[in-house]
């Protein structure tokens, strides 16, 4: 993807998706059928005031967004998509204070449905924190 198109999609991502903006997600790269998003640490991501765990919902939200962007990039023709279903496996505890990176890949795109896989890690893809399997419907 060229620089101007990436910049335009970044502006749209920031402007159009309030929760992504509120959490501080940043698009790293978008290519055909794939997306990479990073999420710098924020104390609001804690899942437990006492022990200092990262809330599972942070991983789910990041992976839903990343898989959704990958699906968007995997559309055969421009359109709107909606999450049909999503599975999240929490592979190991996420580290409090550490930036998260999520990568999504469209496995198959049909006219009605896109199948996407995603993974979230702290910088080393060989040490994933969570993985996702998602399907998206093409709604228009």
């Amino acid at each position, binding site marked *: 993807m060229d620089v101007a198109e990436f910049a335009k999609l970044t502006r749209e991502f920031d402007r159009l998706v309030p*929760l992504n903006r509120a959490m501080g997600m940043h698009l790293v790269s978008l290519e055909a059928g794939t997306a990479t998003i990073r999420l710098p640490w924020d104390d609001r991501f804690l899942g437990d005031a006492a022990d200092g765990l990262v809330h599972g*919902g942070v991983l789910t939200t990041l992976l*839903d967004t990343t898989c959704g962007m990958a699906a968007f990039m995997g559309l055969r023709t421009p359109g709107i998509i909606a999450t049909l279903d999503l*599975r*999240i496996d929490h592979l190991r*505890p996420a580290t409090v204070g550490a930036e998260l990176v999520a990568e999504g890949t469209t496995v198959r795109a049909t006219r009605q449905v896109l199948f996407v896989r995603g993974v979230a890690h702290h910088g080393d893809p060989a040490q994933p924190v969570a993985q996702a399997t998602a399907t998206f419907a093409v709604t228009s």
Partner: protein
Amino acid sequence: MSDVPPFVERLRAARASGDVGELTALMGAVPFAAFLGIEVAPGETGELQARMRFAEHVVGNPGLPAIHGGAIATLLETAAIARVLWEADPEVLPRPVTLTFDYLRSGRPADVHASARIVRQGRRVCTVRVAAWQEDRERPVALANATLLLC
């Protein structure tokens, strides 16, 4: 006797006296749930529920507009954890292992409610079904199946 965390002692005392307020306070202290406007409290029928107040920052698609799937997922996960904390008496905060979400309808700009039911409680693992709805409970916006670790 093994030492249990203070929150477990507090929940046991609260359960014995039927005071759900202790659970509301415990879950209300979770930063990410608070950020999304999620609280745990009894619903109109007295059933334990989680509720997410609608706010602009939980929107995922302003065009429709629709609530972000991740926010609804976090509400469902919160409802599951709250139910397990209240009923299964774990000695640690239940940790999500695997969660599956079915998104049935888009979340309109309004509050979302969720209620969880324990399907099976083992010594280590608890399986929970959760539903989220808005105005009409018979028309859920999302369903979840959560597998939580209890130790």
